[in-house]
């Protein structure tokens, strides 16, 4: 493949960032969190063959190129309320899948809503059978690390039986051949047997 400039380390303008534990504390000087001090290049670089802003040859910021980087840690924990959606999550522990129905227009929101956005009416809870049809899916080879999911994994959009809008969750245990995953195939909600860190993970989809 073509060289991908934003992944090519030789194209990086700046020294690779070291890990703080790899730096000898005595090399950090008086600053305990110092990562590096370096001289940065002019990011636009020497005058290019075509330059619409007629920048002078000289780097205008040359007196401001000595750069210090430090490490700065922050940890945040939330005490998060699931509010008016809570019943959905509470019932997942009872292996029940609930949606909401608008008493005025009758629309059933698979991802529940306390209030129907079309009518501004307070909705009623409605239990669904937990079966549905696969409408679209994506197979990911990559997932941001914080999500703690093994790849490849499948994100699925499902039309739940008895609902009018779709519901998003992972499709698991689809086997090894991804060509077997097809839109239109029947799927069902499966409930976990293991403890989870977020109640949304009490369920997922599997082929029905």
């Amino acid at each position, binding site marked *: *493949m*073509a060289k*991908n*400039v*934003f992944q090519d380390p030789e194209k*990086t*303008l*700046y020294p690779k960032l070291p890990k703080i534990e790899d730096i000898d504390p005595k090399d950090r000087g008086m600053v305990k969190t110092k990562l590096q001090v370096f001289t*940065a*290049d*002019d*990011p*636009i670089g020497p005058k*290019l063959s*075509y*330059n*619409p*802003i007629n920048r002078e040859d000289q780097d205008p*910021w040359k007196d*401001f*190129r000595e*750069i210090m*980087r430090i490490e*700065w840690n*922050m940890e945040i924990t939330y005490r998060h309320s*699931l509010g008016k*959606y809570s019943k959905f999550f509470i019932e997942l522990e009872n292996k029940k899948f609930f949606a909401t129905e608008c008493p005025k227009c009758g629309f059933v*929101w*698979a*991802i529940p809503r306390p209030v129907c*956005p079309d009518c501004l009416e307070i909705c009623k809870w409605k239990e669904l059978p937990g079966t549905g049809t696969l*409408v*679209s*899916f*994506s*197979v*990911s*080879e*990559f*997932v*941001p*690390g*914080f*999500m703690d*999911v093994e790849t490849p*994994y499948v*994100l699925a*959009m499902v039309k739940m039986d008895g609902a009018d*809008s*779709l*519901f*998003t*969750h*992972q499709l698991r245990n689809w086997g090894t051949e*991804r060509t077997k995953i097809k*839109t239109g195939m029947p799927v069902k909600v499966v409930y976990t047997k293991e403890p989870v860190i*977020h109640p*949304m*993970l009490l369920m*997922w989809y599997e082929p029905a």
Partner: protein
Amino acid sequence: MSDRRVFVLGGGISKMAAERPDGNIRDWVVEAAMEAVKDAGVEIADIEHATTSYFSDHFDKQLKQGAIFHDCIGMCPKPNVRVEGGGGTGGLAIRNAYAYIKAGLCDSMIVYGSENMGRHVPSDVAQQFIALASDTDWEVQVAGFYIAYYALMMLSHMEKYGTKEEQFALASVKNHRNAMYNEYAQSPMKITVDDVMNSPLITSPYKILDNCLLSDGASCLIFATEEWAKTHSTSWYRKPRIELVGTGSGTDYMRLADRPFPYPGITHFRAKKFASEQAYKMAGIKNPAKELDCFEVHDAYSGVELVSCEDLRLCGYGQSGKLYEEGYFDIGGEIPINTSGGLIGMGHPVGATGINQGIEVLTQLREEAHPQRQVKLTNGQGGMDSHGGTGTYVAVNIFRRVD
């Protein structure tokens, strides 16, 4: 509506890069503002109002960042408002300038946008911050992230219209190529469809080269009424005059899953259709592909560009794939798209992106672009489409050269 007219006097961009530790976010805004003031031929002391455009407080661990940008460029004690709509932030900021000037709240406004997305946090943490822009209770927890949502949309487009992955790849090839003639661009590359197809798979059908970039950078635009410009801008009589003649905005349900069928379903951007129709109506445009000379489209991922072309009425539904093969959207084609390189080639520092798009249209309409990316002007009109979430917030703005 008042008969005040809103003109773009100038713009400035700081270099887009994956990482710019040579300065920080406030420094890039200063760089862009210095260029914009020079381009517009105005004094910062004369500008009456500011709009701040940035997306995330998390990336730079700084809330109320607009106040810092504002005081760094000597705008205190004059008014400043922040506008935020995810990836649509910059486009909404331009629309804000239009509204404030049109309403008479000010006669001139500086709009600056920036994002610090580089290596202040590891790319994994950056992904986490971006994921926080989708519904954190319902979609993030199931390992939903933006590339995957867009992949669901593209699969649906492929099934509905027979669009091919190679056709998506053509958008990436075009945008990387256009970026080669833009010295501010982050990722100029001469690549082929095969290079895109053979690059590592992220989320089917998306490969790494189909994606936009995490960027550091800033950009800035200056708007004013004609009367203000005549007395305060030395470039008013020297440069072609560019007017902001149409603006539209639209929204859609936060979660793809909630969107109504059959349209938009999970295939299309209803907000974009809604926003563009308003903007076209204001600008008196009936056939956008014929009447516009260039368009900066929000190409967060290659497929997003194709679908956007359809919802912006630059081509019919389901036709974009075939038209990419014909070069319809290339420079020299019927309606050149993303001449700057777009988000894929130029970069995507979220708060700056919409403003980058406005600057590219300004550059094109003034015929100041690199000859290899300059489009031929027939109507002297260009458009831009700025889009947040999976089309959750959209702003479309239309500019016209008035000689």
